[in-house]
Protein backbone atom coordinates (compact mmCIF):
# COMPACT_ATOMS: atom_id res chain seq x y z
CA UNK A 1 0.00 0.00 0.00
CA UNK A 2 2.72 2.45 1.06
CA UNK A 3 4.81 1.47 -1.97
CA UNK A 4 1.85 2.10 -4.28
CA UNK A 5 1.20 5.48 -2.75
CA UNK A 6 4.86 6.43 -2.97
CA UNK A 7 4.89 5.40 -6.64
CA UNK A 8 1.83 7.56 -7.29
CA UNK A 9 3.41 10.56 -5.57
CA UNK A 10 6.70 10.14 -7.42
CA UNK A 11 4.83 9.85 -10.71
CA UNK A 12 2.64 12.86 -9.87
CA UNK A 13 5.53 15.10 -8.84
CA UNK A 14 7.56 14.10 -11.91
CA UNK A 15 4.58 14.87 -14.12
CA UNK A 16 4.05 18.28 -12.55
CA UNK A 17 7.73 19.22 -12.70
CA UNK A 18 8.20 18.03 -16.27
CA UNK A 19 5.09 19.86 -17.41
CA UNK A 20 5.43 23.06 -15.39
CA UNK A 21 9.09 23.77 -16.11
CA UNK A 22 8.83 23.45 -19.91
CA UNK A 23 5.70 25.64 -19.84
CA UNK A 24 7.55 28.42 -18.01
CA UNK A 25 10.56 27.93 -20.28
CA UNK A 26 8.29 28.04 -23.29
CA UNK A 27 6.85 31.31 -22.03
CA UNK A 28 10.32 32.86 -21.77
CA UNK A 29 11.32 31.49 -25.16
CA UNK A 30 8.12 32.72 -26.77
CA UNK A 31 8.85 36.21 -25.48
CA UNK A 32 12.27 36.21 -26.97
CA UNK A 33 11.38 34.55 -30.25
CA UNK A 34 8.12 36.09 -31.33
CA UNK A 35 5.79 38.95 -30.68
CA UNK A 36 4.70 40.30 -27.29
CA UNK A 37 1.15 38.93 -27.30
CA UNK A 38 2.33 35.35 -27.62
CA UNK A 39 4.47 35.74 -24.53
CA UNK A 40 1.51 37.13 -22.59
CA UNK A 41 -0.62 34.15 -23.59
CA UNK A 42 2.15 31.71 -22.65
CA UNK A 43 2.63 33.44 -19.27
CA UNK A 44 -1.10 33.37 -18.61
CA UNK A 45 -1.20 29.63 -19.30
CA UNK A 46 1.82 29.00 -17.09
CA UNK A 47 0.33 31.06 -14.25
CA UNK A 48 -3.02 29.32 -14.59
CA UNK A 49 -1.30 25.97 -14.50
CA UNK A 50 0.69 26.90 -11.39
CA UNK A 51 -2.35 28.08 -9.41
CA UNK A 52 -4.59 25.31 -10.79
CA UNK A 53 -2.36 22.40 -9.89
CA UNK A 54 -1.49 23.81 -6.48
CA UNK A 55 -5.19 24.46 -5.71
CA UNK A 56 -6.07 20.86 -6.62
CA UNK A 57 -3.20 19.55 -4.49
CA UNK A 58 -4.26 21.74 -1.56
CA UNK A 59 -7.86 20.58 -1.96
CA UNK A 60 -6.80 16.95 -1.90
CA UNK A 61 -4.58 17.46 1.14
CA UNK A 62 -7.27 19.40 3.01
CA UNK A 63 -9.88 16.72 2.27
CA UNK A 64 -7.65 13.99 3.67
CA UNK A 65 -6.58 16.05 6.70
CA UNK A 66 -10.20 17.14 7.21
CA UNK A 67 -11.62 13.62 7.34
CA UNK A 68 -8.85 12.43 9.65
CA UNK A 69 -9.30 15.58 11.76
CA UNK A 70 -13.05 14.97 12.05
CA UNK A 71 -12.30 11.42 13.21
CA UNK A 72 -9.83 12.66 15.79
CA UNK A 73 -12.19 15.36 17.08
CA UNK A 74 -15.00 12.81 17.49
CA UNK A 75 -12.89 10.95 20.02
CA UNK A 76 -10.55 13.61 21.39
CA UNK A 77 -12.13 17.08 21.24
CA UNK A 78 -9.30 18.43 23.40
CA UNK A 79 -6.92 18.44 20.40
CA UNK A 80 -9.15 20.75 18.31
CA UNK A 81 -6.52 23.52 18.06
CA UNK A 82 -3.92 21.10 16.79
CA UNK A 83 -6.30 19.75 14.15
CA UNK A 84 -7.15 23.28 12.94
CA UNK A 85 -3.42 24.07 12.61
CA UNK A 86 -2.90 20.90 10.57
CA UNK A 87 -5.88 21.76 8.40
CA UNK A 88 -4.54 25.26 7.78
CA UNK A 89 -1.04 23.99 6.90
CA UNK A 90 -2.34 22.47 3.66
CA UNK A 91 -3.47 25.94 2.53
CA UNK A 92 0.22 26.87 2.23
CA UNK A 93 0.38 24.74 -0.92
CA UNK A 94 -2.10 26.93 -2.75
CA UNK A 95 -0.43 30.08 -1.38
CA UNK A 96 2.88 28.94 -2.85
CA UNK A 97 1.14 28.28 -6.17
CA UNK A 98 -0.37 31.75 -6.00
CA UNK A 99 3.05 33.32 -5.42
CA UNK A 100 4.49 31.30 -8.31
CA UNK A 101 1.65 32.46 -10.56
CA UNK A 102 2.26 36.13 -9.59
CA UNK A 103 5.98 35.74 -10.31
CA UNK A 104 5.24 34.22 -13.72
CA UNK A 105 2.78 36.94 -14.67
CA UNK A 106 5.19 39.69 -13.57
CA UNK A 107 8.13 38.28 -15.51
CA UNK A 108 9.52 41.13 -17.63
CA UNK A 109 8.89 40.81 -21.35
CA UNK A 110 12.22 41.23 -23.12
CA UNK A 111 12.08 42.44 -26.71
CA UNK A 112 13.34 40.04 -29.38
Amino acid at each position, binding site marked *: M*IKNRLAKWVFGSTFVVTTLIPTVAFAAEAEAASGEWQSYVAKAFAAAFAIGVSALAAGYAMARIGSAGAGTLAERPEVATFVIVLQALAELIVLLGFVAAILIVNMPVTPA
Partner: protein
Amino acid sequence: MSDVATKARTRTVPAGGDYGYANARIRGMRSRLLDRSYLDMLIEAPDVKRMVQDLADTEYGPDLEETLIHGVDAANVDIALKNNMVRTFQKVLGFLNDDALYLVTTLLGRWDVFNLKTILRAKHMHLEVDEIADGLLPAGQLNEVDLEALSSVEDVRAVVDTAATWGLAFTAPLREGYTEYMKTGDLVSIELALDRYYAEWASRRLARRGANAKLARRVLATQIDVGNLVMVLRLQKEDVEDIDVADFFLPGGAIVGIDLYQELAGMSDIDEVLDRLRGTPYGRTLDEAATLFLEQNSIAVFERALEDLLTRRTLGLAKGDPLGVGVSVAYLWAKQNEVTNLRIIVKGKAVGMPTSRVREELILV
Protein backbone atom coordinates in the same frame (compact mmCIF):
# COMPACT_ATOMS: atom_id res chain seq x y z
CA MET B 1 -23.08 -15.78 8.07
CA SER B 2 -24.68 -13.00 6.05
CA ASP B 3 -22.74 -10.39 4.16
CA VAL B 4 -22.62 -7.59 6.68
CA ALA B 5 -20.93 -5.23 4.25
CA THR B 6 -24.08 -5.15 2.17
CA LYS B 7 -26.47 -4.70 5.10
CA ALA B 8 -28.42 -1.48 5.16
CA ARG B 9 -26.68 1.32 6.96
CA THR B 10 -28.50 3.73 9.19
CA ARG B 11 -26.13 6.62 8.48
CA THR B 12 -23.56 7.76 5.99
CA VAL B 13 -20.04 6.40 6.39
CA PRO B 14 -16.91 7.06 4.36
CA ALA B 15 -17.29 5.09 1.14
CA GLY B 16 -14.81 2.76 -0.51
CA GLY B 17 -11.30 2.85 0.82
CA ASP B 18 -11.05 6.17 2.70
CA TYR B 19 -9.40 5.07 5.93
CA GLY B 20 -8.51 8.58 7.17
CA TYR B 21 -11.61 9.20 9.27
CA ALA B 22 -11.97 5.72 10.77
CA ASN B 23 -8.29 5.25 11.54
CA ALA B 24 -7.95 8.68 13.17
CA ARG B 25 -10.99 7.90 15.31
CA ILE B 26 -9.65 4.49 16.25
CA ARG B 27 -6.31 6.00 17.21
CA GLY B 28 -8.21 8.33 19.52
CA MET B 29 -10.01 5.34 21.07
CA ARG B 30 -6.77 3.41 21.29
CA SER B 31 -5.29 6.14 23.48
CA ARG B 32 -7.94 5.28 26.08
CA LEU B 33 -7.04 1.61 26.35
CA LEU B 34 -5.74 0.71 29.80
CA ASP B 35 -1.99 0.34 30.07
CA ARG B 36 -0.08 -2.29 31.97
CA SER B 37 0.43 -0.15 35.07
CA TYR B 38 -3.33 0.43 35.31
CA LEU B 39 -3.97 -3.32 35.13
CA ASP B 40 -1.34 -3.78 37.85
CA MET B 41 -3.19 -1.27 40.02
CA LEU B 42 -6.45 -3.20 39.46
CA ILE B 43 -4.76 -6.48 40.36
CA GLU B 44 -3.53 -4.95 43.61
CA ALA B 45 -7.01 -3.66 44.51
CA PRO B 46 -8.16 -5.33 47.75
CA ASP B 47 -11.61 -6.31 46.45
CA VAL B 48 -14.07 -6.06 43.55
CA LYS B 49 -15.66 -2.91 45.01
CA ARG B 50 -12.37 -1.03 44.98
CA MET B 51 -11.66 -2.26 41.48
CA VAL B 52 -15.04 -0.96 40.32
CA GLN B 53 -14.24 2.44 41.86
CA ASP B 54 -10.99 2.58 39.87
CA LEU B 55 -12.68 1.45 36.65
CA ALA B 56 -15.44 4.04 37.06
CA ASP B 57 -13.04 6.76 35.82
CA THR B 58 -12.32 4.89 32.61
CA GLU B 59 -14.24 4.01 29.43
CA TYR B 60 -16.01 1.31 31.43
CA GLY B 61 -17.64 3.84 33.80
CA PRO B 62 -21.02 4.25 32.04
CA ASP B 63 -21.45 0.48 31.54
CA LEU B 64 -20.57 -0.24 35.17
CA GLU B 65 -22.97 2.45 36.36
CA GLU B 66 -25.76 0.95 34.27
CA THR B 67 -25.18 -2.66 35.32
CA LEU B 68 -24.21 -2.25 38.95
CA ILE B 69 -27.63 -0.87 39.90
CA HIS B 70 -28.39 -4.55 40.54
CA GLY B 71 -25.52 -4.84 43.03
CA VAL B 72 -21.74 -4.68 43.04
CA ASP B 73 -20.59 -8.23 42.50
CA ALA B 74 -18.21 -10.01 40.11
CA ALA B 75 -21.03 -11.34 37.91
CA ASN B 76 -22.46 -7.88 37.28
CA VAL B 77 -19.00 -6.39 36.66
CA ASP B 78 -18.43 -9.16 34.15
CA ILE B 79 -21.67 -8.27 32.37
CA ALA B 80 -20.68 -4.58 32.33
CA LEU B 81 -17.29 -5.41 30.81
CA LYS B 82 -18.90 -7.54 28.12
CA ASN B 83 -21.47 -4.82 27.41
CA ASN B 84 -18.67 -2.30 27.00
CA MET B 85 -16.88 -4.55 24.54
CA VAL B 86 -20.01 -5.17 22.48
CA ARG B 87 -20.80 -1.44 22.45
CA THR B 88 -17.26 -0.59 21.37
CA PHE B 89 -17.26 -3.20 18.61
CA GLN B 90 -20.61 -1.96 17.31
CA LYS B 91 -19.37 1.61 17.40
CA VAL B 92 -16.23 0.75 15.41
CA LEU B 93 -18.15 -1.34 12.87
CA GLY B 94 -20.58 1.57 12.53
CA PHE B 95 -17.97 4.05 11.28
CA LEU B 96 -15.65 1.81 9.27
CA ASN B 97 -15.63 2.31 5.53
CA ASP B 98 -17.07 -0.41 3.27
CA ASP B 99 -13.71 -1.99 2.48
CA ALA B 100 -12.64 -2.21 6.13
CA LEU B 101 -16.06 -3.42 7.27
CA TYR B 102 -15.94 -6.30 4.82
CA LEU B 103 -12.46 -7.38 5.91
CA VAL B 104 -13.00 -6.87 9.64
CA THR B 105 -16.32 -8.75 9.79
CA THR B 106 -14.69 -11.65 7.95
CA LEU B 107 -11.97 -11.83 10.58
CA LEU B 108 -14.46 -11.42 13.42
CA GLY B 109 -16.29 -14.51 12.14
CA ARG B 110 -13.89 -16.55 14.27
CA TRP B 111 -15.82 -15.38 17.34
CA ASP B 112 -19.06 -16.76 15.90
CA VAL B 113 -17.36 -20.12 15.51
CA PHE B 114 -15.95 -19.83 19.04
CA ASN B 115 -19.39 -19.00 20.49
CA LEU B 116 -21.18 -21.74 18.57
CA LYS B 117 -18.60 -24.28 19.72
CA THR B 118 -18.97 -23.09 23.32
CA ILE B 119 -22.77 -23.45 23.16
CA LEU B 120 -22.55 -26.89 21.54
CA ARG B 121 -20.08 -28.11 24.19
CA ALA B 122 -22.29 -26.72 26.94
CA LYS B 123 -25.38 -28.39 25.49
CA HIS B 124 -23.48 -31.63 25.11
CA MET B 125 -22.59 -31.44 28.82
CA HIS B 126 -26.12 -30.24 29.80
CA LEU B 127 -24.92 -26.99 31.41
CA GLU B 128 -27.26 -24.24 32.61
CA VAL B 129 -27.85 -21.08 30.52
CA ASP B 130 -26.05 -18.89 33.09
CA GLU B 131 -22.98 -21.09 32.97
CA ILE B 132 -22.90 -20.89 29.17
CA ALA B 133 -23.18 -17.10 29.11
CA ASP B 134 -19.96 -16.92 31.11
CA GLY B 135 -17.93 -18.45 28.30
CA LEU B 136 -19.43 -16.47 25.44
CA LEU B 137 -17.88 -13.42 23.82
CA PRO B 138 -20.31 -11.67 21.47
CA ALA B 139 -17.66 -10.12 19.23
CA GLY B 140 -18.87 -11.59 15.96
CA GLN B 141 -22.05 -11.22 13.97
CA LEU B 142 -24.14 -13.25 16.43
CA ASN B 143 -25.08 -10.70 19.07
CA GLU B 144 -25.79 -11.24 22.75
CA VAL B 145 -29.52 -11.81 22.17
CA ASP B 146 -28.85 -14.39 19.45
CA LEU B 147 -26.37 -16.19 21.65
CA GLU B 148 -28.73 -16.16 24.62
CA ALA B 149 -31.49 -17.62 22.46
CA LEU B 150 -29.18 -20.33 21.16
CA SER B 151 -27.96 -21.07 24.71
CA SER B 152 -31.48 -21.53 26.04
CA VAL B 153 -32.52 -24.29 23.62
CA GLU B 154 -32.72 -27.84 24.87
CA ASP B 155 -29.87 -29.80 23.30
CA VAL B 156 -27.30 -30.01 20.49
CA ARG B 157 -29.96 -30.94 17.96
CA ALA B 158 -32.06 -27.90 18.92
CA VAL B 159 -29.00 -25.64 18.40
CA VAL B 160 -28.57 -27.06 14.87
CA ASP B 161 -32.29 -26.67 14.15
CA THR B 162 -32.40 -23.09 15.47
CA ALA B 163 -29.39 -22.15 13.33
CA ALA B 164 -31.21 -23.63 10.32
CA THR B 165 -34.41 -21.73 11.16
CA TRP B 166 -32.48 -18.47 11.38
CA GLY B 167 -30.81 -19.23 8.06
CA LEU B 168 -27.31 -18.92 9.48
CA ALA B 169 -24.58 -19.74 6.99
CA PHE B 170 -23.22 -22.14 9.61
CA THR B 171 -26.21 -24.42 9.12
CA ALA B 172 -24.47 -26.54 6.47
CA PRO B 173 -21.42 -27.44 8.62
CA LEU B 174 -23.63 -27.88 11.70
CA ARG B 175 -25.85 -30.37 9.88
CA GLU B 176 -22.88 -32.14 8.32
CA GLY B 177 -21.21 -32.51 11.73
CA TYR B 178 -24.43 -33.41 13.51
CA THR B 179 -24.95 -36.54 11.38
CA GLU B 180 -21.54 -37.79 12.52
CA TYR B 181 -22.24 -36.67 16.09
CA MET B 182 -25.37 -38.82 16.16
CA LYS B 183 -23.29 -41.86 15.25
CA THR B 184 -20.31 -41.31 17.53
CA GLY B 185 -21.65 -39.05 20.28
CA ASP B 186 -18.44 -37.04 19.89
CA LEU B 187 -18.63 -33.27 19.31
CA VAL B 188 -15.32 -33.20 17.43
CA SER B 189 -17.08 -33.79 14.11
CA ILE B 190 -19.28 -30.67 14.50
CA GLU B 191 -16.41 -28.54 15.78
CA LEU B 192 -14.20 -29.62 12.92
CA ALA B 193 -16.92 -28.96 10.35
CA LEU B 194 -17.40 -25.46 11.79
CA ASP B 195 -13.66 -24.72 11.79
CA ARG B 196 -13.23 -25.96 8.24
CA TYR B 197 -16.26 -24.04 7.05
CA TYR B 198 -14.95 -20.81 8.57
CA ALA B 199 -11.45 -21.32 7.15
CA GLU B 200 -12.82 -21.88 3.64
CA TRP B 201 -15.47 -19.17 3.86
CA ALA B 202 -13.05 -16.54 5.16
CA SER B 203 -10.29 -17.49 2.69
CA ARG B 204 -12.79 -17.14 -0.15
CA ARG B 205 -13.99 -13.75 1.06
CA LEU B 206 -10.47 -12.43 1.52
CA ALA B 207 -9.30 -13.56 -1.90
CA ARG B 208 -9.37 -9.99 -3.20
CA ARG B 209 -6.75 -7.71 -4.62
CA GLY B 210 -5.10 -5.00 -2.57
CA ALA B 211 -2.77 -4.56 0.36
CA ASN B 212 -5.57 -4.52 2.95
CA ALA B 213 -7.02 -7.84 1.81
CA LYS B 214 -3.49 -9.26 1.80
CA LEU B 215 -3.00 -8.12 5.38
CA ALA B 216 -6.32 -9.65 6.46
CA ARG B 217 -5.36 -12.88 4.67
CA ARG B 218 -2.12 -12.92 6.65
CA VAL B 219 -4.03 -12.68 9.94
CA LEU B 220 -6.42 -15.44 8.87
CA ALA B 221 -3.57 -17.66 7.65
CA THR B 222 -1.79 -17.29 11.01
CA GLN B 223 -5.04 -18.19 12.82
CA ILE B 224 -5.37 -21.30 10.67
CA ASP B 225 -1.72 -22.24 11.19
CA VAL B 226 -2.19 -21.92 14.95
CA GLY B 227 -5.28 -24.15 14.77
CA ASN B 228 -3.43 -26.79 12.73
CA LEU B 229 -0.37 -26.73 14.98
CA VAL B 230 -2.48 -27.13 18.12
CA MET B 231 -4.28 -30.04 16.49
CA VAL B 232 -1.00 -31.74 15.51
CA LEU B 233 0.36 -31.32 19.03
CA ARG B 234 -2.87 -32.73 20.49
CA LEU B 235 -2.73 -35.72 18.16
CA GLN B 236 0.89 -36.28 19.18
CA LYS B 237 0.02 -36.08 22.88
CA GLU B 238 -2.94 -38.44 22.56
CA ASP B 239 -0.83 -40.78 20.43
CA VAL B 240 -3.79 -41.82 18.28
CA GLU B 241 -3.08 -44.24 15.47
CA ASP B 242 -6.29 -45.48 13.88
CA ILE B 243 -7.49 -42.16 12.45
CA ASP B 244 -6.81 -40.24 9.27
CA VAL B 245 -5.03 -37.09 10.47
CA ALA B 246 -5.86 -35.26 7.24
CA ASP B 247 -9.50 -35.14 8.40
CA PHE B 248 -8.44 -32.65 11.07
CA PHE B 249 -6.55 -30.36 8.70
CA LEU B 250 -7.79 -26.81 8.08
CA PRO B 251 -6.96 -25.39 4.66
CA GLY B 252 -5.61 -21.87 4.12
CA GLY B 253 -2.63 -21.66 6.47
CA ALA B 254 0.51 -19.68 5.67
CA ILE B 255 3.23 -22.11 6.76
CA VAL B 256 1.45 -25.33 7.72
CA GLY B 257 0.21 -26.82 4.45
CA ILE B 258 -1.20 -30.34 4.15
CA ASP B 259 2.24 -31.84 3.44
CA LEU B 260 3.92 -30.33 6.49
CA TYR B 261 0.82 -31.13 8.58
CA GLN B 262 0.92 -34.81 7.64
CA GLU B 263 4.68 -34.91 8.14
CA LEU B 264 4.30 -33.43 11.64
CA ALA B 265 1.40 -35.72 12.51
CA GLY B 266 3.44 -38.74 11.41
CA MET B 267 6.35 -37.94 13.72
CA SER B 268 7.13 -40.08 16.71
CA ASP B 269 6.89 -37.48 19.50
CA ILE B 270 6.46 -33.79 20.34
CA ASP B 271 10.23 -33.18 20.50
CA GLU B 272 10.55 -34.21 16.88
CA VAL B 273 7.67 -31.88 15.92
CA LEU B 274 9.37 -28.98 17.71
CA ASP B 275 12.67 -29.77 15.94
CA ARG B 276 10.95 -29.76 12.55
CA LEU B 277 9.24 -26.43 13.29
CA ARG B 278 12.45 -24.76 14.49
CA GLY B 279 13.08 -22.95 11.20
CA THR B 280 9.52 -21.60 10.91
CA PRO B 281 8.06 -18.41 12.45
CA TYR B 282 6.44 -20.57 15.15
CA GLY B 283 9.65 -22.36 16.16
CA ARG B 284 10.87 -19.87 18.74
CA THR B 285 7.48 -19.54 20.45
CA LEU B 286 7.06 -23.30 20.70
CA ASP B 287 10.63 -23.75 21.95
CA GLU B 288 10.03 -21.22 24.71
CA ALA B 289 6.82 -22.99 25.72
CA ALA B 290 8.52 -26.40 25.69
CA THR B 291 10.11 -25.84 29.12
CA LEU B 292 6.73 -25.14 30.68
CA PHE B 293 5.30 -28.14 28.85
CA LEU B 294 7.86 -30.39 30.51
CA GLU B 295 6.70 -29.10 33.92
CA GLN B 296 2.95 -29.22 33.29
CA ASN B 297 2.67 -31.92 30.60
CA SER B 298 -0.29 -30.08 29.07
CA ILE B 299 -0.84 -29.08 25.43
CA ALA B 300 -2.64 -25.99 26.78
CA VAL B 301 0.82 -24.50 27.30
CA PHE B 302 1.56 -24.57 23.55
CA GLU B 303 -1.97 -23.46 22.77
CA ARG B 304 -1.59 -20.45 25.00
CA ALA B 305 1.85 -19.59 23.57
CA LEU B 306 0.58 -19.78 19.98
CA GLU B 307 -2.54 -17.75 20.82
CA ASP B 308 -0.30 -15.11 22.44
CA LEU B 309 1.83 -15.05 19.30
CA LEU B 310 -1.27 -14.57 17.17
CA THR B 311 -2.48 -11.73 19.41
CA ARG B 312 0.97 -10.11 19.39
CA ARG B 313 1.15 -10.25 15.61
CA THR B 314 -2.36 -8.87 15.20
CA LEU B 315 -1.67 -6.02 17.62
CA GLY B 316 1.50 -5.29 15.66
CA LEU B 317 -0.62 -4.44 12.61
CA ALA B 318 -1.30 -1.03 14.19
CA LYS B 319 2.31 -0.09 13.46
CA GLY B 320 1.91 -0.76 9.73
CA ASP B 321 0.18 1.38 7.13
CA PRO B 322 -1.53 4.26 9.01
CA LEU B 323 -4.20 4.39 6.29
CA GLY B 324 -4.87 0.65 6.14
CA VAL B 325 -7.19 -1.87 7.76
CA GLY B 326 -4.47 -2.99 10.20
CA VAL B 327 -5.25 -0.12 12.59
CA SER B 328 -8.88 -1.21 13.09
CA VAL B 329 -8.10 -4.94 13.26
CA ALA B 330 -5.37 -4.31 15.84
CA TYR B 331 -7.66 -2.09 17.93
CA LEU B 332 -10.50 -4.62 18.04
CA TRP B 333 -8.07 -7.36 19.08
CA ALA B 334 -6.53 -5.07 21.71
CA LYS B 335 -9.96 -4.21 23.10
CA GLN B 336 -11.01 -7.84 23.26
CA ASN B 337 -7.70 -8.66 24.93
CA GLU B 338 -8.20 -5.88 27.49
CA VAL B 339 -11.73 -7.03 28.35
CA THR B 340 -10.53 -10.64 28.69
CA ASN B 341 -7.79 -9.47 31.07
CA LEU B 342 -10.23 -7.40 33.13
CA ARG B 343 -12.60 -10.37 33.37
CA ILE B 344 -9.74 -12.54 34.60
CA ILE B 345 -8.88 -9.95 37.26
CA VAL B 346 -12.52 -9.63 38.40
CA LYS B 347 -12.97 -13.39 38.61
CA GLY B 348 -9.64 -13.73 40.37
CA LYS B 349 -10.68 -11.12 42.94
CA ALA B 350 -14.06 -12.79 43.43
CA VAL B 351 -12.58 -16.21 44.23
CA GLY B 352 -9.64 -14.80 46.22
CA MET B 353 -6.99 -15.88 43.72
CA PRO B 354 -3.44 -14.79 44.68
CA THR B 355 -2.23 -11.77 42.67
CA SER B 356 0.75 -13.73 41.31
CA ARG B 357 -1.62 -16.31 39.85
CA VAL B 358 -3.84 -13.59 38.34
CA ARG B 359 -0.75 -12.10 36.67
CA GLU B 360 0.11 -15.49 35.18
CA GLU B 361 -3.36 -15.83 33.73
CA LEU B 362 -3.37 -12.42 32.04
CA ILE B 363 -2.71 -12.16 28.33
CA LEU B 364 -0.14 -9.37 28.36
CA VAL B 365 1.44 -9.03 24.96
